[in-house]
């Protein structure tokens, strides 16, 4: 069981968290009029690398806040934890972001990624 450092609560056991899967999937809105084929890449295709993976986690049994996490799927090493709506800062994290097939996908080229804003 991993130890995960919640950015809001500190180090907690993995059992308090839930993993929300791949991070940085921009959501294409309906008005973009994408073809079924291109839209299905967003809807169905997943990325499942051996190595560093950027994923979203939620401190479900704690503060219920979401955050991003860069994790090595082989060694389970947590490389970086960073807020929603921003990009990884570490070299490994940046590399993992670029390695994802989505960076070349047609739907991502037109979709806006979620952005961190001041409320």
């Amino acid at each position, binding site marked *: 069981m*991993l130890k995960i450092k919640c950015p809001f609560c500190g180090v907690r056991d993995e059992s308090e968290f839930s993993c929300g899967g791949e991070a940085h999937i921009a*959501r294409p809105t309906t008005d973009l009029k994408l073809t079924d084929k291109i*839209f299905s890449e967003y809807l169905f295709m997943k990325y499942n690398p051996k190595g560093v993976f950027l994923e979203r986690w*939620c401190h479900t049994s704690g503060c219920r806040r979401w955050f991003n996490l860069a994790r090595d799927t082989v060694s389970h090493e947590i490389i970086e934890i960073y807020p*929603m709506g921003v990009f990884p800062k570490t070299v490994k994290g940046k590399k993992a972001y670029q390695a994802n097939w989505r960076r070349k996908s047609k739907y991502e080229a037109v979709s806006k990624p*979620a952005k961190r804003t001041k409320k």
Partner: protein
Amino acid sequence: MNRLLSHRISSNGAVIDRQKLVHFEFDQKKYTGYEGDTLASALLAHGIHLVGRSFKYHRPRGIFGSGSEEPNALVRLIGDKSSEPNLRATQIEIYDGLIAESQNRFPSLKIDFLSINNVFRRFFPAGFYYKTFMWPASFWMFYEKLIRKAAGLGKLSKKYHRPERYEHKYAHCDLLVVGSGAAGLQTAIIAAKSGARVVIADEQHRFGGWLLTDNDFNINQIPAASWVHETVKNLQSAPNVTCLSRTTVSSMMDDNFVIMAERVTEHLGKKDMLLPKQRLWKLRASKVILATGAIERPLVFSGNDLPGIMLSSAIRTYINRYDVLSGRRAIIFTNNDDAYFTALAIHKAGGFVRCIVDLRVNPKSQIITKVRKIGINILAGHAVIAAHGLRHIASVDIAKYNSGKQAPTSSILHMDCNLLAMSGGLNPVVHLHSQRKGKLVWDERTSCYRPDNKSDEWVSVGAANGTFELERIFIEATKIASTTIMKLAKENNKIKTKELVTVPQIDKDKQNWTPLPTWLIQAGQPHVSDKTAFVDFQNDSTAADIKLAVKEGYSSVEHVKRYTTTGMATDQGKTSNINAIGILASCLNKSIAETGVTTFRPPYTPVSLGAIAGRNIGGLFDPVRKTRMHSWHQSNGAKFEHVGQWMRAWYYPRDGESFQQAVNREVYATRHYAGLLDASTLGKIEVKGPDSAEFLNRVYTNNFADLPIGKARYGLMLKEDGMVFDDGVTTRLAEDHFYMTTTTGGAAGVLSWLEELLQTEWLDLRVYLTSVTEQWSVASLSGPNSRSILTACMSENKNITDDFPFMTMKKSFIAGIPARIFRISFTGEMAFEINVPARYGAALWSHLMKIGKEFNLTAYGTEAMHVLRAEKGFIIVGQETDGTVTPHDLDMGWIISNKKSDFIGKRALERKSMNEPQRKQLVGLLTADPSKVIPEGAHAVLDPNQEMPMEMLGHISSSYYSPNLKHSIALALLKGGLNRKGQTVYIPMLDGQQPIEAKIVDPVFFDKKGERLRG
């Protein structure tokens, strides 16, 4: 004493207390032993070796080892009220009144009918189950029953509620030391003095590890046993050290999360009710030192599984710890020096060592010289090529043996004996290292797999690290303890790093630790078969099985393991894995390092299910949620049903009423007079913030931005794939404030989903969500008399009910209780959902029932609610939908806004496949026989006489008897159903019953225009 205790030798300072006699029972016979004995040592003291029958061939099997590696001696312990199977006799401490029985035999150990399998052995080769029971497929049901009876280990206690208590404990420490032998004690005592929080755990009942067996030498000029005693005393008195004996570290997971099973009172005859039977520790350790020692390897030769053939180390342990000599005419078969210590021990205990058969041609060391001086015959360069005996070893065949050519090179020497000690080298216990995905490296000098020790979080030391000579173990342990403490001190400045302990000096006979690896002794004799050369004793797999697997094309170690089931029994191959790899490697003409090793997985030894469950059993298994009206339901005879964690009133039977009669009465009363439902369990979410309307617009399919204040609207929520996810009514309380209701079961999921969208997708929206499900009690009042009852209950503003249109909300007081009243309906009748602060729930309910009496108000449960809504064709998410159903499939296209540019699921709904006319669509069904109710989940077909497998049209999602229509009604999802209205379908039944005939109709069965609802 009596003859039965003749295998006890005179005391030499063992772990048993000869003053304290203990009485126990094994297979209906009474025996005695001493306090401190294990069941195995006590049985061996009575000359009993045979304790079980083997898994596949039902061969007689005896006690083989002395600890958790034991593959054969699995027994069942019988308690007053329950029993526990598959416990290792080598680890059970006996107490007065202990009752044990052997397993896997019928009718008795000595005569076992299924040992006929032994005769038909050639029919049970590797992969037997895969090969034999494949055809015909339909026979599998028959085969399975036979296999289950014949195979399998042990019998489960049939009692569900066990009297024993188990508990869980969570803890943290700086350093966990696993194992309390020389390496474990040395590292722990150094760590103890550094001030670090230390936990030291050992699976045995007292600390000392191998020093409990071999201790006829001095450590730092004092006897080894005294050194152990002193060190343990110092550890136990240190405030920063937790000493856990009888504690098996079963799993080591990510970030040093360790699970340990502590046997707290299992070894006590009289149970202490204040203490649990076992305690499951969940420990988080900064660093872990694995001092788990090593397990001796057996040698693989024909007949090596006979009772009376034991691990050399086990024989020595029984002598030195328990004063038990397992046999008086012994032969030692070895490829290393360690077995010579066993020869010495047997000799000292008064046994006769007939000879030592050593595979090495010219073995030399201090200990060998010592043994030779005593006059024990050493046959160097020889091998035992077969063992003979019926239910116990009687004799062996010995020949000169060429390990390189793998063949005997001389004629056979026949020698009788009643004990054979075998030693094929040592396997470091690398299980925990391997569980953490640590790599193993093959060490040629010591011929064993040892850990690569490359992790920063844990480290192996001593025999667990492939270091077998005691002098070197102490040096290594001292060094590793120091470096580990240095690392800990970097994180915690309270930990001192000064070197406080020096390396102990010892005066032990030197041995030369270079075993000669010989994985399989090939008899080279036509009459001696390797089909009884056992590799895995517990799973009955042999050298012949491995050879056969290779012949059939298996070459990967992982595949051979699964095909032959070697190493897959409850002992997880503790004694068999490396021998299997050795045999496989030589079959493949590869080196062991090239062949590779299988991965050890948790747990190290089986963990009792009781310990895993802990206190989370019975009423504590899962929380039960009750509404504030629960006690009223209870005192009015309600039957309850579980909806998620909620307990909901299902129906309220009156004197002598059946389920159907009660439901019919409740449904009828609600349609004709008035009914009251406890709807408190509905999910309720407050949505607040300036962007709330925009947010709801994006998550619901229909428009919420234009909803006026005080009005309510039904909404359908989809997931991004366009499938229905939840539904409910949302009301606008203010410009920036909405009150959302969800399904009872979906409440938590909806809240999580909305939170996820706000936090990960639309970070710019200013919306705040609060779950208020438990803050409001809800009574749903419906039926023609509902308005009159509501008016009568109002404590002020009675006239508000005069102008209270459908889908609106008003605030008022009922019996002085502040209430939000929603005119919404799930029954199709005029209905009011009255929400009050939760604590007034019971008061509201009683008041409504009291005032409603003269209006014929009847309490109805969830079953009547289902019937009422089905009469109206209202869907229930999760019953009419299953994650593959779109709004169009439900004929609810009207709820999808065309004006909105986007909402969750909108683009997916436009996909071509979502508009296929042959998708399953919601329809109503009326049975030809109005009294026949179709079972829910049944499938519908067009032609009941077609060939099997029939082409299915769809399934029945809801089905009830409608007392208002006096007709059975059903909702179904049928392929292309919307265009099939008027057609006839058939629902085939099991067990030769006639198919049920039904007509496809509109799903709204009652008040199609909705006049009663709005009236």
